Structures are given as C-alpha cells and as structure tokens.
C-alpha cells in the first residue's frame, strides 16, 4: 500500500491555511439577514413578559422571535430526539415560557446586519417569575444527598457493568487497601470555531443549512422532526468544522433558531453564538468518584469498587459509564460499581473527548498510583502485575492488545528506570521533579456506513459519504484509503463529505469514523473492482479471464493479478471496451457483532513535572504517550490527534474549570481568557509513539481509530507526577497552586 500508514499531509490543509475553506458562519448566500440570541438571566422559572417594542423600533430590525410569536414547532418530545439524545425530554428552543437553565435562548432578534441585531438584542426587556434553582454538584462525597442510581447494572451500554465476585468481603480481607475520592469539575469543549448556522431559504421553500456539526444527517433528521418538514426539503452541509470534540454530536440550538427564523420570515438567516453563549451548551459533567482497591501484598488486585456521582439537567437523563473502565482494565476477581446522578438546573451535559474514560480512568489511575505507594511498589510494576489479556467485565479476550509494548517502549523512551521511588526525592535546583505514569484505554468501535465511489476511465475517483471531518483528518485518510484501494494517485481522489444528501453516515464520534469509513471505502472499492473484472473478462484474450475477484487488485490504474503482476489490463481500456466511461457504486458496510472479543485501544503515558517548591508553580516538562491502536492510517494526523489529547489532558490536570456561581446559577468565567486551557508556555516536550498492533479480526483493514485515546490517562499521569514531586496528593481537579500550598 502506498498511502496507508504514511505521514500524508492533510489534503484540505492548503484550503484551511489560505482561508478558502468555508465554515458554517461564512457560507455565501444572497439576501442574508442576521439573528442575535437573547439568553435568560435566571436559572429556573417562567418568562412573564418579553417586551420587544424597543428592539422592533430600531431601524433595520426585521423581527424579534420569541415563544409567543414563533412559527409552529413539534409538540412531542419525539420531534426533538436526535440520533444521540439521552432519555428524557430534549430542550426546545423558544418553545414556551419555561426557563430550564441560565443562558437559555429566549429570543432571536433578526436584522439586516449583525451589529443592528446585537444592538436591538440589548433592548429586549424580560420579566421573569423566578423559582429556586440548584446548580451545585457535590465536591465532597459526604455532601451528596440520596440520589437515584442511573440504571441497573448491565441494563444498557452506559449503566455500570454487572458486579463480579464479592468485592466487599474481598476488600475486608485484602492485605493492602486504598480508598480515595476524585473530583472533576464541569469542563467545556471550547472549540475554536463558534457555533453558527447559515440557513438559505430557497425560492421553493426548501432549506439549505450550513451548520457546525459532527453529523449532517443527524441535524437534517432533527430539523425535519422539529419543523415537520419532508426530508427532501432540508439539506444540511458542514464541509469544515473548526473543532467540536463532542459538542457537535447533538444539534445545537442556533440551528433551530436560524431555521425557525428562515421559515417565519421566508428569508435566509445566519445565527452565530457568542463565546459567552457557548457556555450555555453541553459540557463534560462534574463528578465525584470514589474508588476502593484491595490487593495482596504482592500487588495483585483482589477487589475494587468504583462509585460515581455525576450530574445531568432536570429534563434529560445523561450519564456515561465512568465506572466500567476500572472493571475492564486490570485482573481483579471481585468488583462492584455504583453510579448515581444529580439533576441540576443546568443544560444537559454531553459527550466531550473520551467521555467517561477521560474522567473514570483519571480516578482509577490515580487510585492505582496510591495503591502502588501503599504497597511500596513501582507504579509501572503494579500495572504489569495486574495486566489482563481479557476484558475483565465480559471475560472476553481482546481482538488485539499490545499494552505491554506501550509500557515497555514508553518506559524506555522516558527513562522510567531512573526514577527514584520516594516522593520529593528528585530535584532540579529550586524545583522538585516528579515522574508519574498512567494507563489509558478506549473503545474501538465501528458503525454501519455507506460509501459511494465514482471511478472514471481517466483515473479519477470521487468518494462520497455523509460523514464529517471535525478537524481530525477524515478527508485525508479517506483519500489515502481510496487511492490505495483503487490504485490511483492521491491527487486524483476527490472526497465529498459533510452533506446530508450523501450516502448514510452516523455522527462522527467515539473514534469510530476512521475504522468505519475506511472499511466502507474498501467494500465499495471491491464492488468497483468486481464490476471492472466482469468487463475485463469479456475482453478478447483477457489475461484475467479465469481469475477470481479476490485475486485481483487495482494498482497504478490497472486491474492486476495479485500473484502475477504480468497479468493486468488497464482500467481505461477495460471501461472503453465495456462502452462506459465511469463506474459509480454505493455500498453499505456493516460490521458483524463480534461476541467473542472485546475491542479496545490502549496507551501508557509517562509525565515529568517540575514544581517550584516554595510557590507551587507546576511545569509539565516532558510527556511520552505510547499508543496501541491497531493499524495507524496516517502517522502525521494520528500524532496530531494524540498530541492534542495530551495537551488537553495537561489542561484537565492543571487548568480547566468552569466556575459556577450557585446564587445565580451561572457560569462566571464564560470566556477563554478566564476559562483556562494550556497555552504554549505550558507545553514542553511531547513524544508520541505508536506500537505495532496487528489486528486481523477487528475489521478487514485492522483499524481501531484514535481520536479519544490521546487524552485518556494523561491527567492521572500528571497528577501522579505532581504527587511524586511534592508528596502532596491532590484529588480535586484542577491542581492549582493554592492546593499545593494548602
């Protein structure tokens, strides 16, 4: 294969850096008007009155839409259920007078230009009947009130796994025990691109919607549900996305407002949220997790319990399986899990990069570090003693698992053997040096997907699928796979994605698109090959007359015997002979349910921190992230994914926190000056290593995907390094310097 596995630069890179890539809020259309959103200032209650008279008096204002004058929208929850909606009653923008969270959209001011809309929005006066709200997630375990369990163990993919053995008795009998409570605050995705939608109202009343999303067909279906529109009346486009990280899995409210205004006014409408308003969307839920581990003196695990309390809104029941990662990862005969959820007067949380694993594994891997300390064992050695070749929750072997090699290569690259075990025992001048490590784990998922390929006689291929490229490099890996499968040069492949009229794709999430779409391209390529072979066999004196399809490959514009390159005919000749100049086929690829294996990616992360002893200032000076994720399609884009994940993990460990004022029920640091993420100065050396992990059983190409694995475990590795440096165990993220000085 020529392209798969190489460091191919992004095929859309030039368009992006030269500004020709068009994002949702830049889409060109004529006669555009602009909407500015007014949001609620209270967290719970009702709107008594909205006075829009001043706003309407402003010159160039077209209309102000509120729940009182909006066009019809669906009245049943089913109208608002998107592909990934949790149980409950989805939020309905501008539906009625009820306020469910602070920052909720309550009016859309539409004007001829964005500045006028913004100005007029400031003139909308709202009177509320306020009700008491609760927005506080419990930072201490013992403060949590009685809460309902999320679901029965094993009831659904997100409920805790079924228990095994008798954890309580085994813990009581364990030689060494550790228990800790680990807190993660509310975190926001903060993608660079603001949420925005441009809706073109076509003359025939259909809507062309440019949206920032991770799933164009999800948005299309959703809009049809909300506004009772026939599917052919709505087309959703999202050719480029400036980051989303899970925030774009569900349709966001600006797309509803833009479509609603377009339908009401019969005009093309653009709505762009402000950065502040983006803190009224979904987020990674705050959570407290209690983990108890019991081990034999030799460091083998006997028992574990992993309990979590997470948060959701008052209207939807959102939760993910934080607890299950503990049960899966290490050999341990006894395990129980519990997961409760606190409903709060805030928007529904949503998936954010490695949902549940970034947080659940953070808690587990800090607890493992603490257990290693209690056992007097090297933290890496402890992991190796508990290594499991089977998914402990299902007791299935993995389709492949080369975590051993991650540990080995990571430790070697980092120089782990030079670590002195005692906390505070390594120094560099006025700084304490700490080395910490952690394991990461994520799922290798794959989902049904359809791919259409049009191959022309002149050697050009157009590959179409309604998936998205949220910045991960999907355009590029699709082009690489297609070029290899069809035997054409990379620059002769055109990728079309981010268009709801293209062949079916689920939302881009869960790290499942690379594996799914790549194998989807392979399937459709096979079909093209078969059709070509059928034609080739009819050619006079065909060198391929007696050959089976499986023995033919497409290489360098030719159909060729895989065994004997001399037996070949050119694709151009084949098509000419068949009297056609192109073959266009669409195939759906489904992945058989594999009940015999678990499919996961793994990583080992090693981190070095330097901490100013007196002032508590932390610098993460070195990180080695070693990843086992099946076949790597593109080492360049894959490294970028892992680098980004590591940076994010450093932020999770040291910086990120949404500050909620519970008196007002509002986010107070709703901007990226005060919501801290790492800046360049916070990032030093990051080394990404992919270990070989051949996997013949997961799918034809052996691909696992790696959008999420990069962040998992990083916060724990950093937190463990901070402990090793300072002797202080901070379990409450982020580890700000005041917590070290306390």
């Amino acid at each position, binding site marked *: 294969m020529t392209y798969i596995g190489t460091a191919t630069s992004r095929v859309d890179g030039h368009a992006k850096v030269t500004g020709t890539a068009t994002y949702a809020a830049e889409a060109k259309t004529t006669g555009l008007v602009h909407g500015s959103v007014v949001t609620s200032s209270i967290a719970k209650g009702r709107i008594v009155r909205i006075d829009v008279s001043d706003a309407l008096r402003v010159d160039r204002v077209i209309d102000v839409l509120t729940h009182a004058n909006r066009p019809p929208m669906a009245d049943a929850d089913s109208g608002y259920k998107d592909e990934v909606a949790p149980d409950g009653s989805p939020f309905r923008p501008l539906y009625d007078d009820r306020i469910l969270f602070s920052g909720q959209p309550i009016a859309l001011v539409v004007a001829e230009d964005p500045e006028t809309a*913004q100005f007029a929005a400031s003139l909308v006066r709202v009177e509320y009947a306020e009700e008491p709200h609760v927005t506080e997630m419990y930072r201490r375990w013992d403060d949590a009130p009685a809460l309902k369990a999320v679901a029965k163990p094993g009831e659904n993919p997100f409920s805790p796994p079924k228990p095994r053995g008798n954890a309580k008795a085994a813990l009581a009998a364990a030689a060494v025990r550790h228990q800790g409570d680990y807190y993660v605050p509310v975190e926001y995705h903060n993608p660079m691109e603001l949420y925005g939608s441009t809706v073109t109202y076509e003359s025939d009343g259909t809507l062309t919607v440019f949206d920032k999303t991770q799933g164009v067909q999800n948005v299309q279906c959703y809009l049809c549900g909300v506004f009772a529109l026939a599917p052919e009346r709505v087309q959703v486009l999202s050719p480029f996305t400036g980051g989303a990280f899970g925030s774009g899995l569900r349709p966001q409210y600006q797309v509803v407002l833009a479509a609603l205004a377009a339908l009401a006014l019969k005009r093309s409408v653009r709505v762009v949220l402000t950065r502040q308003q983006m803190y009224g969307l979904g987020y990674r839920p705050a959570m407290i997790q209690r983990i108890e581990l019991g081990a034999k003196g030799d460091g083998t695990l006997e028992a574990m319990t992993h309990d979590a309390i997470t948060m959701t809104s008052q209207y939807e029941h959102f939760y993910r399986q934080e607890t299950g990662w503990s049960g899966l990862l290490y050999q341990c005969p006894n395990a129980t899990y519990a997961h409760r959820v606190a409903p709060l007067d805030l928007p529904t949380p949503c998936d954010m990069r490695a949902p549940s694993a970034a947080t659940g594994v953070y808690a587990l891997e800090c607890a493992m570090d603490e257990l290693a300390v209690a056992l007097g064992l090297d933290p890496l050695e402890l992991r190796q003693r508990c290594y499991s070749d089977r998914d402990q929750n299902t007791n299935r072997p993995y389709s492949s698992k080369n975590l051993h090699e991650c540990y080995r290569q990571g430790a070697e690259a980092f120089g782990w053997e030079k670590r002195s075990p005692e906390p505070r025992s390594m120094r560099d001048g*006025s700084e304490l040096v700490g080395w910490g490590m952690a394991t990461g784990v994520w799922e290798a998922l794959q989902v049904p997907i359809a791919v259409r390929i049009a191959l022309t006689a002149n050697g050009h291929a157009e590959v179409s699928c309604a998936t998205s490229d949220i910045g991960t490099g999907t355009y590029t890996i699709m082009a690489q796979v297609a070029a290899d499968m069809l035997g054409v040069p990379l620059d002769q492949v055109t990728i079309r994605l981010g268009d709801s009229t293209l062949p079916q794709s689920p939302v881009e999430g869960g790290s499942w698109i690379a594996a799914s779409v790549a194998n989807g391209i392979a399937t459709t390529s096979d079909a093209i090959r078969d059709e070509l072979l059928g034609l080739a066999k009819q050619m006079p004196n065909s060198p391929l007359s007696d050959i089976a399809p499986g023995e033919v490959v497409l290489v360098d514009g030719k159909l060729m015997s895989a065994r004997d390159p001399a037996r070949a005919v050119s694709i151009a000749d084949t098509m000419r002979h068949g009297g056609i100049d192109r073959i266009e086929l669409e195939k759906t690829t489904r992945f058989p349910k594999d009940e015999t294996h678990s499919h996961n990616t793994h990583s080992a992360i090693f981190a070095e921190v330097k901490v100013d002893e007196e002032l508590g200032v932390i610098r993460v000076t070195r990180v080695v992230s070693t990843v086992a994720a099946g076949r790597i399609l593109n080492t360049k884009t894959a490294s970028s994914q892992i680098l980004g994940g590591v940076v994010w993990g450093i932020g999770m460990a040291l910086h990120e926190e949404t*500050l909620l004022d519970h008196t*007002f029920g509002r986010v*107070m640091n709703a901007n990226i000056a005060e919501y*801290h993420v790492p800046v360049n*100065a*916070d990032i030093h050396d990051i080394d990404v290593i992919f270990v070989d992990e051949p996997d013949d059983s997961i799918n034809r190409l052996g691909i696992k995907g790696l959008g999420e694995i990069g962040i998992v475990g990083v916060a724990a590795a950093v937190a463990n390094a901070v402990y090793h440096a300072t002797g202080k165990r901070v379990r409450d993220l982020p580890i700000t310097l005041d917590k070290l000085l306390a």
Partner: protein
Amino acid sequence: MINFRYTRATDVGDAVRQIAAEPKAKFIAGGTNILDLMKYEVEQPTQLIDISHLPLRIIEEVPSGGLRIGALVPNSDLAYHPLIEARYPILSSAILAGASQQLRNMASTGGNLMQRTRCFYFYDTVTPCNKREPGSGCSAIEGINRINAILGTSEACIATHPSDMCVALAALEATVHVIGPSGERAIPFADFHRLPGGTPEIDTNLAPDEIIMAVELPPQGFASHYSYLKIRDRLSYAFALVSAAAALELDGGRIAEARLALGGVAHKPWRRVEAEAALRGEVPDRAAFAKAADILLRGSCGFAHNGFKIGLAHRVIERTLMQAAHGTPQIQAIKKIR
C-alpha cells in the same frame, strides 16, 4: 453592544474639549479593554473618541534625567525600547509578564493604567456589582472571589487592579501627566489609582474630563537589582494571582534603597513606604525580606477562595527580593522561577 457615535480627536486639546462636552463619552486607544467591556455592555459610552493617532507616541529624555513616555506608546514598544531595557528593566519585565504579544502590540500606556478590573461579576451585567452599578451590591464577597483582593478592600468592593505594568510604575515612583479643561497637572503614581472605599465605581483620580498625556519616570531605575515575579494559574497569558516588583540599591552589602509593590492583591498596585523603610540599612537576607513582607501584608484579609493569596504573597515577596538582591531577575520568557 449598544450603539454609539465614533469621533476622532484632532489633537489633545480637541480630545479634552470633546470629552468635556459629552460626559458619557469614552476615549479609545488600543481598544483591548474598552471594546470587550462594550461588547459585554459593561461600558455603554454614547460616544467613542478615538485618540489612537494623536502624537503621544514618543519616549524622550527629560532634563531631570528621567524619561517621559507618551500615553499612546504601545506596551510592546515600551517594553523593547533600548532606554527602558537599559535603565528601567523592571518596567520591561513587568510589561512582558502581561497579556500576550498581540495584546501588547495594541495596548497603550495610558490604556494600561486605565484598564478595569477582571472581577467576574463586573463583567456579567446580570449580577449585582457596585463598581458597575453603584449601590447594587457586591456579588464577589459571598461569591467566587479567588481572583479578588486581600488588601485595601471595602464592604462595597474587593476587586483588584489587573495591570502588571502599573506594579513596576508604582515601584519606580512614576508620575502621571494629565490635562483637562483647567490645564495640566502631575499625579504621583501612588495617588493615581484609588482604593474602592464607598465609591468603587471610581478607579482612579483622573477626572472624567481629563486625558493622560504621559508617564514620567524619575532618574533612578534600579537597573542592577530588580525583579518582577508574577504567579498565575498557567505559565503565560493569565492575570496575576500575586505579582511583585522589587527594586534595590545595594551599598557595601546592605540595602541603601528599596522599592516593593504588589499586583493582584488590591484595587491598586500595593505599596507601603514602611515596608521599604524596614529594608533600608539591612543585610539583604531572608529575615529582612520576611519582615518587609509582614509589614506590606499587615491587615490582609482573605475571603472564601482567596485566603491562599496571603501566604503566597509572603513567599512571592521574599523570592522577588531574593532575585533582586542576587541580581538574578526573573526572565519572563523563561517560566522556571529563578
């Protein structure tokens, strides 16, 4: 954002005339603070008077031996000016500890003095805030106050002044030259910013119809023993939790002259001449520094989330004085603390 009128001042006199004529007008220089505040509707000027092109961009030597810095000199130009780097490196260092390169390119000297607090509630018009809306109450006292003040607070307001540059200017005992309808006057730096008291809405002693023309530095620049140390929640591009500017003159192993100012802890750069007096004549060691810190922090009082600043400030003072005494000032491009 609220609609406003935009005008350009033709010269300094015109700027003063325009602002005197419209009490709800505001100047705009670099715009890095005023525009954000307008977008959040915290500031609602009826008129923006653009002064950015006025000829106040020069740094010149004055007969007394000091330097005069025009109010529109960009923060970057000031930080990298050869005379500043050579004679007042503490000012360079403090500026480079602040914001980002892009912001410093836009930010002006006068604007930096006039920038407003970063208190979260001040920025959110939904919440009560005495500084934004006198008499409405202070949400920070019982709210999220991790970034708020520990010194010089009042029952009305516990905000801090966020500037780094101003901490160095306070230590250098700069003078602010201003002009208004009744003429020019010079304001000693220590009197420029105010404590909140009962009128937190008034940040400075600049009259509403006055404009800053220049900041003057006295001859003494403490170029050999100084340091500016800023502690924040990430290693760059964040406001100070606590910062300190320390400047010393050493003579025969003892401190002949000392200046010490803190940022991030009060409504203005925090200085006490008693703390500096206590350093004079002492051997520059930890005991002397700790004593000065005690005096400078006397009366400090934390709230629910910012009590840590008191201990932190103590350590920062000692460390900064140590860096100054050893002639090893903090280098802003290097994040390891010396």
